[in-house]
């Protein structure tokens, strides 16, 4: 878990650098400071549990084991990117790892994960769907529609709210009448637990209990992780809405050195080993950036492909329609 947090941190620092060099375009939302949430939560779930997240999604992709080079290639807009250069930073996905996407319309994935959980229950699969979103998402109606249905139909889903105190530039007090997001779950009679999102083990234990509840057929569970993003909302954010002291206070709780210190204190690891991990990861990231930078851009001739799984050409002769099966994931080829 320590290594994963370091991996996410270094990956994103390199992404920020590449963004400054205009190698990455559009929006780039960094997860720096919040690594303990994705890492702790995903370690507590099964690797086959369907995962859906909001747009601040690099951390989850990496914690799920997605190839860092393909993640970086997606940010660089390359054909070998996770979403073949069609998605970008906010829309990473890797079906082979049961990562069903970063979703950039705030709250929109909440009923989607609920529907996936219903399908799992319908097919008697043991999956628990994991849905991550921010405090800001709880102000959107779609959040409430999704929670309502999840509770009504008792589907196996764990809702994980990353309360980082801000929804873009809105403070929690400006966007929500309740300070604690767990209160949102009460109206849906959904069990809920709050935990320290800067402590990877606290997140792990909380999400483990939540998954056990949902996997046991007891319906959804709501987890709130108290956390903080050390960087701006996106790379474009001048951070006029919060003061530097507050940021410093939270930086003192940085989940990476904090977990490292604990590993050393409990003699599970030495300082030297932690340093070695950091150095290894940094070397790996240098290679990741170089490989992503060398990857081919998508072929413009393919720009209108993949809009449909079953494209229909009214000019083509009629074939046996309705028989076309959706493409198997294995049939998705990389490159152009």
């Amino acid at each position: 878990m320590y290594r994963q947090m370091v991996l996410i941190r270094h990956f994103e620092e390199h992404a920020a650098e590449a963004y400054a060099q205009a190698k990455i375009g559009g929006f780039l939302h960094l997860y720096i400071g919040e690594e303990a949430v994705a890492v702790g939560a995903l370690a507590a779930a099964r690797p086959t549990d369907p995962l859906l997240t909001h747009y601040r999604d690099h951390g989850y992709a990496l914690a799920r084991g997605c190839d860092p080079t393909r993640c970086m290639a997606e940010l660089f807009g390359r054909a070998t990117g996770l979403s073949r250069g069609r998605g970008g930073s906010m829309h990473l996905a890797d079906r082979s790892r049961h990562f069903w996407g970063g979703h950039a319309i705030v709250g929109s994935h909440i009923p989607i994960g609920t529907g996936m959980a219903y399908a799992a229950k319908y097919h008697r699969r043991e999956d628990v769907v994991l849905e991550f979103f921010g405090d800001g998402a709880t102000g959107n109606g779609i959040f409430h529609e999704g929670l309502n249905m999840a509770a009504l139909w008792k589907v196996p889903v764990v809702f994980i709210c990353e309360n980082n105190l801000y929804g873009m530039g809105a403070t929690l007090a400006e966007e929500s009448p309740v300070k604690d997001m767990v209160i949102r779950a009460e109206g849906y009679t959904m069990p809920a637990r709050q935990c320290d999102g800067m402590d990877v083990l606290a997140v792990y234990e909380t999400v483990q209990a939540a998954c056990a509840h949902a996997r046991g057929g007891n319906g959804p569970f709501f987890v709130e992780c108290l956390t903080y993003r050390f960087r701006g909302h996106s790379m474009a954010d001048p951070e006029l809405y919060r003061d530097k002291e507050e940021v410093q206070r939270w930086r003192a709780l940085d989940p990476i050195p904090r977990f490292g210190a604990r590993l050393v204190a409990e003699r599970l690891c030495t300082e030297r080993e932690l340093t070695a991990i950091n150095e290894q990861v940094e070397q790996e990231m240098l290679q990741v950036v170089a490989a992503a930078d060398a990857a081919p851009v998508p072929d413009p001739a393919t720009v209108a492909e993949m809009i449909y799984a079953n494209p229909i050409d009214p000019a083509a002769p009629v074939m046996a329609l309705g028989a076309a099966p959706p493409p198997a994931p294995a049939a998705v080829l990389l490159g152009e």
Partner: protein
Amino acid sequence: MAASTYREAVRSALREEMERDPDVILLGESITGYGGSYAVTRGLVEEFGSHRVMETPIAEAGIVGFAVGAAMGGLRPVAELMTVNFALLALDQIVNSAAKFHYMFGGQWSVPMVVRTVSGFGQLGATHSQSFEGWFASVPGLKVVMPATPADAKGLLLSAIRDPDPVIFIEHSLLYSTRGPMPDDPAALVPIGRARVARAGTDVTVVAYSRMLLQALQAAEALEREDGCQCEVIDLRTLRPVDYPTVAASVRRTHRVVLCGEDWRSGGFGAALLAELQDLCFDDLDAPIARVAMRDVPLPYARNLEQALLPSSEQVVETVRSLL
């Protein structure tokens, strides 16, 4: 040859697909005990159980989002949105989720789902009498179907449920009680993306879909009787993708075309169709492309005011005459 109402045709498509494929589920508001606000799903919950015919909260965006997720999880959901007016609340899920995932995630998965909804009017007032097919038809990633006949309602719905992409299936409230012949093979599919020449003719092409097909056919009869004019009437059936080859082939023979719809003239589906046909057929045309559409007015309640706005067969007749 067997006959059926449009309502029964939709219901039998749902029933037969549910029998054929255990992954097909229905969900929507008041679709179980109540039977659906247009009684389409009546009896299905008793037959298939509440885990396959799901009564939902009044939450259109949630319903469609849930259906998208259910489809990603391996089901074949058919979501009913009571009318297309309420579908506006679900536009985000339709446009930003269902229509986008296959492309935006690089073809990793598709969203095999159907949204069934209803256009129409009848003194229902401004919020309950609208037509938005043009909006849906403008979105790449969606397929949009509007059947006019019972046979098409069934055959197209069968195709829509089996299709791996999201399909917006728009029924018409004033068609539910119409009757029509059904094919001998009850499992016959009607392919998405194919128009049908509903009446052959040589003088003018009239393009219509959904309820306007009936208006267009009536107009064609009147024009034959009164003017000796032979209209070719095309039932578009699918609004995305449009079967331009069939329309263009007809215009090449008739050199005149009238486009009929019930949505607003400005920015309506007919406006987009007109622009495309002008590109395709300009050299074949002997007259400007003409339209029959709803005036840009919110539909009023009073019967006479509403009647004054509704596109009718008389308007089709007048419009055709203006081209001759």
